[in-house]
């Protein structure tokens, strides 16, 4: 069938990238809180990025599989284990009927994601498999998972091709303090210069009042021009609302579609995962960036995700090796250049890039030292190239 929930954990829900197209009717988007981690998990098991996953919060569930499948766990380190043994995150794993998956203890971050090859057998409601907890719709019967729940797999597999390629770098989870980049607005003109300065120069802290709707922050009061109420307008994921009491609230995945409080800024998309993974007590500082910078960062992230996908699914060949700076290799004899490219290609294909081999590389610099015969060259590869692993 799929899997059975033995214990539900603190808050485990079925989520995809959200219910799009119904905000006009007042229906919240919902969806995963940390899109980056969820997408990586799906890529590792060969799913579309938008395939539904389980979002696991703080204390994870224990799950028994009744069918073989391939899974991947990303996001927070909650002590992921299979059959009592610690299991690897950020890697596709085969699980077998009878295996028990659980999470032993929260170590870093707040929310982990489990992706299942072929997706979950959960009905699509209004275009999405996401759970809207407030409206009690979508996902698994519109609620969090509980003991006894059974969820089927739509297209399970015992193993996927190129399992050895299905690895990604673990993301750094917030521990003590994070920097959260924002774009100012839409109601930044409702705040005094002093208020804006306070917002951008103070240290705030996540309080224990955080959930899928939003995160209340503690810190310096932010000064308004004329109170924190506005005639209701639209709210986006990551909007920083500041009601009249002056303390900011970051709107998250289950935010209402409209609201009547001033919004001083909005967290940029690539920094939303940091907020989604911040526990109570984590400190943060806001930094204003331009729309151009924010959209460029989003573009770079999409390129990285595409490279991860390519590294798993595309056959590597010499065409995929692109030099940013070939150094001395650039003026070496053609047969030497060809040999170097072939060596790099083979190394990528075998995933044999390690300090032990002839090739030593530093990520993210993308610098490689290659030995060809008696000669040694140092080259720098284009970012997209070394996304290949």
């Amino acid at each position: 069938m799929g899997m059975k929930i033995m214990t539900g954990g603190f808050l485990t829900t079925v989520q995809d990238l959200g219910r799009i197209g119904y905000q006009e009717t007042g229906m919240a988007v919902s969806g995963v809180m940390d899109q980056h981690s969820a997408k990586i998990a799906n890529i590792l098991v060969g799913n579309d990025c938008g395939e539904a996953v389980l979002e696991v919060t703080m204390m994870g569930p224990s799950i028994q599989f009744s069918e073989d499948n391939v899974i991947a766990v990303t996001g927070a380190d909650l002590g992921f284990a299979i059959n009592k043994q610690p299991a690897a995150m950020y890697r596709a794993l085969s699980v077998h009927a009878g295996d028990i998956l659980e999470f032993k203890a929260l170590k870093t971050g707040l929310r982990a994601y489990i992706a299942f090859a072929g997706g979950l057998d959960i009905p699509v409601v209004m275009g999405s498999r996401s759970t809207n907890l407030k409206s009690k719709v979508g996902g698994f019967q519109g609620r969090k998972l509980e003991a006894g729940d059974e969820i089927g797999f739509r297209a399970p597999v015992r193993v996927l091709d190129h399992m050895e390629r299905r690895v990604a770098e673990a993301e750094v989870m917030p521990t003590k303090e994070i920097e959260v980049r924002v774009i100012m607005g839409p109601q930044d003109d409702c705040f005094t210069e002093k208020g804006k300065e306070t917002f951008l120069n103070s240290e705030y802290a996540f309080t224990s009042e955080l959930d899928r709707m939003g995160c209340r922050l503690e810190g310096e009061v932010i000064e308004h021009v004329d109170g924190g109420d506005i005639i209701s307008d639209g709210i986006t994921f990551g909007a920083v609302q500041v009601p009249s009491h002056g303390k900011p609230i970051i709107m998250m995945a289950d935010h209402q579609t409209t609201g009547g409080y001033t919004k001083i800024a909005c967290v940029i998309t690539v920094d939303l995962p940091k907020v989604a993974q911040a526990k109570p007590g984590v400190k943060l500082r806001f930094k204003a960036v331009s729309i151009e910078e924010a959209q460029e960062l989003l573009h770079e992230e999409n390129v990285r995700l595409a490279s991860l996908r390519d590294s798993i699914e595309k056959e590597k060949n010499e065409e995929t090796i692109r030099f940013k700076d070939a150094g001395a290799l650039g003026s070496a004899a053609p047969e030497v250049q060809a040999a170097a490219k072939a060596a790099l290609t083979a190394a990528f294909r075998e995933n044999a890039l390690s300090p032990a081999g002839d090739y030593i590389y530093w990520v993210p610099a993308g610098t490689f030292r290659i030995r060809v015969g008696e000669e040694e060259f140092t080259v720098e590869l284009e970012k997209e190239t070394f996304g290949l692993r």
Partner: protein
Amino acid sequence: MSNVRYLLAGDSSIDVEFGNSISPEINRDIRAFNIAVKKSEIPGIIETIPTYRSLLVQYDPETIRFHELTEQFDKLMGSLDSIEIPPPTVIEIPVLYGGEEGPDLANVAEHNGISTDDVIRIHTGRDYLIYMLGFVAGFPYLGGMDKSIATPRLKSPRVRIPGGSVGIAGEQTGIYPIDSPGGWQLIGRTPLKLYEAEREKPVLLEAGQYIRFRAVDRAEYDAIQKQVDDNTYQYVTYNREEQ
């Protein structure tokens, strides 16, 4: 249109602001622009959310960047007068006023120094514009309630208000689409379901539409309830004559 502002709402949304007050004129402009955006072939638009004073447009920055999008919007603004807006429609909402369905009807009457019959007559006496939907799926923000039945919210909100309840809070009136806690003065209840996930059109109401409440008795309320449950109820809607 000269007051339109393009406000940044993060890196993937633009708040196209038409004004800063609740007015049918601003609402018409937003409606026209919403139709224009939907009809346009601007790439990368994901969805639009009309509100009291703005249209929030969510877009994909991989497909179109902020500045290019505002340029496209400028072009649309120029052609808004020629956009054909369908005439607004009115949907009739049958309501059983008072009794168990409207436990606060007497409060509202007393607060305003009028009879409960007067409250019903005034409440059903005009069309209400749906400015926007928000709060939960299907919840209408209505404008235009007669101030003579305005009543402050309950000091202590109820833990559970049944879906379909019609209420008054301050100068606003509205309908709860689903069971919800809330502090509105409840004056009646409609058997219609404003929100039903399995329905082809899950949310009954639309921003830009008008609502007309009609008082029904218990017998008619029960009859309509049955039709709604059987999926045989015929919604009463008609074009609204421009005033």
